[in-house]
């Protein structure tokens, strides 16, 4: 999927993550901050990259401010940000497809 415009999903509440996605040209440029960085930073990064790969996003600037979100929340926020960034969030969400 191609990122057409900047989009944002999620909040800065505890147990949530705020994902901002913007068009980019140099692959995935991920900026990650997390309240549980020391213990889960690597797992969080892997979860985000996996979600982007599943959505076939290969060029984007992604900023994630994580406040201790579980993996399921992280995935949902990334998916939502991506769909919003390419105008797909109102319809055509591939439920049961790449969104599982």
């Amino acid at each position, binding site marked *: 999927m191609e990122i057409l415009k900047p989009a944002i999903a999620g909040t800065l509440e*505890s*147990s949530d993550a705020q994902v901002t996605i913007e068009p980019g040209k140099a692959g995935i440029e991920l900026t*990650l901050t997390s*309240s*549980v*960085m*020391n*213990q*889960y*930073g*690597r*797992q969080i*990064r892997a979860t985000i990259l996996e979600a982007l790969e599943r959505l076939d996003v290969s060029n984007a600037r992604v900023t994630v401010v994580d*406040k*201790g*979100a*579980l*993996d399921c929340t992280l995935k949902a926020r990334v998916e939502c940000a991506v769909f919003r960034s390419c105008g797909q969030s109102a319809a055509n969400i591939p439920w049961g497809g790449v969104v599982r």
Partner: protein
Amino acid sequence: MRNAVGREIPDALLTNGREVYQGRNHMDGRYLQKAAPKTRRYEKPQESKVVESIAQALRDCGAKSGMTFSFHHHLRDGDYVVNMVMQTAIEELGLKELTIAATSLGAAHDPIADYIEAGKVVGIQTSGIRGRMGEVVSAGKLKTPAVIRSHGGRPRAIEGGEVHIDIAFIAAPTSDCVGNCRGIGGKSNCGSLGYAMTDAKYADHVVVITDCLVDFPNMPASVEAIDVDAVVVVDSIGNPQKIASAAARISQNPRDLMMAENVAKVIASTPYFKDGFSFQTGVGGPSLAANLFLEQYMDERKIRMGWAIGGICGPMVELLKKGKVGKVIDVQDFDLDGVNSIHQTPGHFEMSASQYANPANKGAFVNKLDFVVLAALEIDTGFNVNVLTGSDGILRGAPGGHPDAAAGSKCCIIVTPLIRGRMATVCEHVVTVTTPGDCVDVLVTDYGIAVNPLRPDLIACLDSAGIPHVTIEELKEKAYSLVGRPDDLEWEDQVVAILEARDGTILDVVRKIKPFTLD
């Protein structure tokens, strides 16, 4: 050397007879040589000890670089006194290489972080350390490792001479002109002055700082004029809004209430739950809510609580007023209901930190406790509890009376949700051991109850009451299945804080955390 909770303690710290933690009651029966302060004689009658400023009081007490100043934390997050005194000592008198020995330190003391970074404050001895101070100490900027003690460990260390206080500062809501202090009757009331009592008896010099000078004699005094060198009157010793919250409310959170109900069930299943039983609880959501459910069981069985201790707040005062608890003995007040009740409600008494929790005296209140209900940041499969360091390894908490009440009580119950955000509360190894697992008996979480295998008697109690329970390993696996298995924290060699067990042995150390990089 490895200690009894499996922590590696650097040999370099084991000097002057200092030992590693070897288990509960290891020091029992040993003798302690008490230290005595060197105090000045005031033979010539004095009309008043009031001096014009903190600077003058410091000069009169011979303040110099390298000294240890003590403080107490009854004013909590509203305290002005620590910052006021340290600013005067450092900026007005130009003192350096000072050590702060406080009963606890909090966010109110952020400015002290600057003095640590500037090398003016070189030692910290405290129960709690949070905010910016926690960050700079964790970053290794304090010249000597901070020493973290429980509320009972501190009076032990003072009485045994491990901590020598040159000048103790008493933040007094009321004082008379010669230094009889009380925690009530003024404009910045904090209730009990329990933590200040040992300091006043063992410090070479004692300075009272008050914002409400009252007529002599201010009785009954919590800190007595016979121990006081000087009295300073200031505009304000603290922000009353932050000294105590309006009221510690009982949680409405259904998860907290469910855990609280299970805590009460566990208590009611033991043989200690009988008329005259004794109880301590923290003020965390589920711990405090346990009061509510416990009262139902007390009514059902037609029994009364004999006495309660600890930090005191509204719900406990309520029980006292209703006649459901015989006596409340109070080392610190957590809310205005507690503050307004001490010495007023019949049966609501004040006690010193030593009386409360000191393991080296001849019998503290905690030793007579039947139940204590406490919270935890983390608890591991060895039942070791951490209430000091965050999941990032930074100092941001306080053992307080946790290790003392756990060790003294017949049944110590930890109540905590299984996970907080993405943090597994029940884990394989806590970051720092602050209460050893041999003092913890039951864990109540929102996903189940576990009993320490060291207590087969309690397991039998739960079984016969039909209370389901699982192993703590099962709870840990459940937590990890929800949040994932955490990576180990990465540390540097430098020890930034020494965690003393209540008996003075070394329970754990906190090292400097390595800067985290994703790659």
